[in-house]
């Protein structure tokens, strides 16, 4: 198996610190240990998708939906934390985690669209597209949801295999601790 060059590993660590405000998330450490290129891919692409058209709280809603769909212990908890920072309320996050729908119409429609895309593996027919359009979900939203599905499949699968430990920054957050009955506390 290829050995990772020290330079490549350090470059990614520096890139992560810059992107995450001096902090290197455990998921990036896990990726960087075996493939700095994969770690770099994740950091760079998440940076780009954050520059897309969906506002932060809508993007986090979609990410939570995908991560719950794939049962990713790391991303459901990490994006519960990031979702709170982006302005999502506890109830919306917990509804998604329970497999339900948020009360807010716009978030509800984004969750429904994300689940529809995943359930049908992207094969939406004319009726689907028309119904979604009626609910305010057009191609801008669908194309960004698809992009997020791709990025989260990548990280969700990595975390399944690596059993990545959830970062203390997340587990020690009071909002997250309040949500343990729904999110489930990880016993490491």
């Amino acid at each position, binding site marked *: 198996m290829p050995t990772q060059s020290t330079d490549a590993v350090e470059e990614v660590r520096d890139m992560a610190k810059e992107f995450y405000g001096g902090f290197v998330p455990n998921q990036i450490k896990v990726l960087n240990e075996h493939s700095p*290129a994969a770690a770099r891919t994740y950091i*760079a692409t998440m940076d780009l998708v954050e520059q897309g058209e969906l506002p932060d709280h809508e993007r986090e809603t979609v990410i939570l939906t995908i991560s719950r769909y794939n049962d990713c212990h790391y991303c459901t908890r990490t994006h519960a934390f990031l979702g709170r920072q982006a302005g999502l309320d506890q109830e919306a996050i917990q509804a998604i985690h329970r497999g*339900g729908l948020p009360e807010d119409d716009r978030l509800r429609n984004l969750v429904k669209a994300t689940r529809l895309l995943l359930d049908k593996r992207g094969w939406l027919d004319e009726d689907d597209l028309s119904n979604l359009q009626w609910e305010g979900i057009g191609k801008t939203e669908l194309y960004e949801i698809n992009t997020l599905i791709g990025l989260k499949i990548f990280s969700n699968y990595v975390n*399944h295999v690596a059993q990545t430990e959830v970062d203390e920054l997340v587990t020690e957050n009071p909002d997250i601790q309040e949500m343990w009955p729904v999110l489930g506390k990880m016993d490491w």
Partner: protein
Amino acid sequence: MSSALTRDVEQTATEAYGAVPNLFKETNQYTGAPGAVYVAADAALMDGNLRPVDQQVVLLTLARYHNSRYDSVIHARMALDAGLPPATIDRLLAGETVADDRRQALVEATLKSCEERGWLDPETLRDFEARGVGRGELYEIFAFIGLKTFTGFTSHIADPEVDGPLKDVEASLEEVPDEPETIERQRLFMG
């Protein structure tokens, strides 16, 4: 629409591929994020554990898995450029096994990861590692699964025309995956 992201996609894709692929011409009308994410990931993964020919084995497997005509043709062209024999490309697009065990291990790791949604057990991981697909390769396969899921899903909606310079490749392929006859929703959650 025009934004910093869409302009970046136009410039970077033209430099990397010679032109902006039709799929990203379509997405750029609505948002620059898909194209920008794709070209950035494609460039970053070129420095990974998987060599270009390995990458194309994985990408052709995924194009077939998603029944994506558009991705099948693009990656057939890129696979030829990477040195994969035409007969192997046809076998991958037909879902047939390939003779080289390392390449077959890449195919199996890709399909197993898709079917199990990344829940690979320790015995499976050991088997792949023994056949040359270790953790680093697997993580890069996961990245490609993500990329091809998003381009596949987007192609299903956008139905882009195969790019002009690739039409001769499309014509030369024995079998090109396409939309399945029946599409059923497998509902996991409410909504």
